[in-house]
């Protein structure tokens, strides 16, 4: 049987994998962008809320500021200071500076805002204090009834821990459902891809189940619209292949038939001629013609058999329950007279008393056993032993044809199944198709063939050689 050609790895991608990959990539990008946007919105709203609280601190500070005799006075008791600066999460610093910019009270590290703003208004901005990022509110407190002109600058700086915490909380609340949605979407996509590709799988299964000789068109009814053209093309191709195969088979069968009559004529003429009194030379020539005619006749017979059992003819040779034991016995018995002519002890051995039954075609199996015995007799010298044995191991039925003939060299044991291959230096009558036929039939029956050394044979010089043991294993003989 042919092995499928290697598939180019680069082109071997999965449709569902590709679909899933691209859809998930898109989903991921959408989710990432939406997360970024969400974060910035969440942060914005967290800022807004805490900025107002910060402003209230600044205004409360402003309430405690007074200008007495052109001097800025702050009435800030320790407890108020503590309360002002107390916060669970963040550090709060403040700075109050006079209109001339000199610091009145607070943390001198707080820098004034870089943007100018009107007196009586406030401004929020981000800054850095020490090593920490801070949010600052600056409030310009106008000075009334005083010699001091301008406004006092009140700044309150707060680290951003709780703002960030809040933003994260918001984003967390938003992100979890989003991830869930993404996962659910992925699952739905995955399932729907699977479901959409189901007809493809069914198609594959139905093709896989086909025997290699089934060239009937594939039903396009249940196939998705997208692959219907592909199927149509495939069916077209199968039809073309079938026509070619059929033509080939018919030709071989016809040719074999047509060859038979002239061969029969040739054979009869030679036999008739050999009955006449002729010179030794002519007799020798005629005898050679007779031998060649026999070979030719056998070759034609084998060609026809091969053409018949070739894949695609199973319609003609349906499988049924076959009593292998009876069949093998009958075929072996048919060969006994031929074996006796060579004084070969041809016998049958069955391991168990029970008949072995397999699923197969009787015609093909007979051909197979016949060819094996023929071969064994051919390559076994006069006086040899050929044993046809049947045994059973678990579910397997094993057929063995063991001889003590010339044997097959180990490096040739694989080759002998090739068509027209002949064992070197063999002068047997075989024509190289017998084992090819055997192999085809074994294949059709899903049986395996192997060749081992057969029985020992000691020639005139005391040299020991081993014959051939052809073993055929039929799998699961009592099942389909």
């Amino acid at each position: 049987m042919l092995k499928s050609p290697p598939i180019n790895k680069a082109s071997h991608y999965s449709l569902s994998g590709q679909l899933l990959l691209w859809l998930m990539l898109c989903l991921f990008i959408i989710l990432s962008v939406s997360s970024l946007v969400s974060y910035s919105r969440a942060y914005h709203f967290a800022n807004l809320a805490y900025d107002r609280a910060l402003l209230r601190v600044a205004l409360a500070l402003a309430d405690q500021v007074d200008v007495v005799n052109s001097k800025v006075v702050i009435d800030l008791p320790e407890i108020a200071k503590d309360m002002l600066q107390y916060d669970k999460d963040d550090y709060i610093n403040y700075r109050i500076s006079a209109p001339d910019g000199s610091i009145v009270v607070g943390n001198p590290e707080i820098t004034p805002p870089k943007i100018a703003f009107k007196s009586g208004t406030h401004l929020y901005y981000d800054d850095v204090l020490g090593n920490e990022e801070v949010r600052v509110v600056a409030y310009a407190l106008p000075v009334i009834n005083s010699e001091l002109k301008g406004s006092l600058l009140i700044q309150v700086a707060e680290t951003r821990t709780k703002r960030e915490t809040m933003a994260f909380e918001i984003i967390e609340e938003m992100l979890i459902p989003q991830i869930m949605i993404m996962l659910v979407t992925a699952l739905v996509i995955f399932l729907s891809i699977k479901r959409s590709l189901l007809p493809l799988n069914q198609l594959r299964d139905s093709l896989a189940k086909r025997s290699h000789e089934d060239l009937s068109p594939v039903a396009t009814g249940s196939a998705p619209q997208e692959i219907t053209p592909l199927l149509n093309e495939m069916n077209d191709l199968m039809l073309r292949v079938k026509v070619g195969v059929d033509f080939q088979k018919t030709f071989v069968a016809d040719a074999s038939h047509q060859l038979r009559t002239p061969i029969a004529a040739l054979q009869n003429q030679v036999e008739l001629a050999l009955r006449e009194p002729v010179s030794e030379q002519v007799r020798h020539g005629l005898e050679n013609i007779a031998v060649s005619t026999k070979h030719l006749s056998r070759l034609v017979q084998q060609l026809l058999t091969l053409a018949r059992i070739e894949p695609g003819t199973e319609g003609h040779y349906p499988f049924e329950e076959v009593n292998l034991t009876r069949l093998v016995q009958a075929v072996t018995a048919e060969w006994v007279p031929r074996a006796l002519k060579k004084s070969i002890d041809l016998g049958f051995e069955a391991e168990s008393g029970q008949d072995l039954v397999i699923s197969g075609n009787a015609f093909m199996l007979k051909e197979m056993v016949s060819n094996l015995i023929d071969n064994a007799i051919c390559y076994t010298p006069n006086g040899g032993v050929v044993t046809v044995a049947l045994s059973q191991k678990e579910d397997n039925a094993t057929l063995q044809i063991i001889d003590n003939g010339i044997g097959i060299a180990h490096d040739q044991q694989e080759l002998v199944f090739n068509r027209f291959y002949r064992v070197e230096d063999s002068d047997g009558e075989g024509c190289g198709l017998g084992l090819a036929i055997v192999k085809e039939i074994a294949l059709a029956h899903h049986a395996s063939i192997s060749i081992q050394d057969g029985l020992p044979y000691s020639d005139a010089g005391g040299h020991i050689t081993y014959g051939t043991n052809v073993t055929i294993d039929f799998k699961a003989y009592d099942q389909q």
Partner: protein
Amino acid sequence: MRLLVVEDDKILAEGLQAALTQAGYAVDHAANGEIANVFLQQTSYDLVVLDLGLPKLDGFEVLKRLRSRGDKVAVMVLTAQDAIESRVKGLDLGADDYLIKPVNLSELEARVRALIRRGKMGANISLVCGDLVFNAADKRASCGGYDLLLSTRELALLEILMHKQNKVVSKEQVLESLCNWDDELGDNAVEVYVHRLRKKIAPASVQIRTIRGLGYLLENVKKSSH
């Protein structure tokens, strides 16, 4: 004995004609189905060797017309068509034998002899193997003219072996032939009867071979040693 060879291949027909003439038969030849059909209506033959793939009227048709006329002449189909369907069709239409080309001349002659014998004498024939003769009608066996004293079972065994001489007779077949008479037979009954028969036919030029795992085979010793 008059035979008709129906064969469109000139050389094969000539060969068959020559061989059968040598064997002592008067042989006519028809090169196509129509001629054969005419010959068969005009002449009473003892046997017809009939090809199937014939011009004008194929062999099946010739055979069908022959039998529909009630002609019981022995018909031996000799054809290149070895498909089981054709074989079955041929035999169903009333062929007495079905041979696939090419066929060995000696085998053809033997089959012709057998068919003619069957046609002439029915079942009442003597089976011969070497100098051993078995008469099926009065169930008697003789060797070189002297009757052999055999029991009914030994005769039954000899009959089946003679019928299938040079072919393997399985133990089951032997057992069946022995079981036609009365009681159950033991496991080694076949061996016992074969052993006895061997002893009794020892003077004849035949032998019963034991074929490993298959059964027994009766053969003419002179013939096989030659």
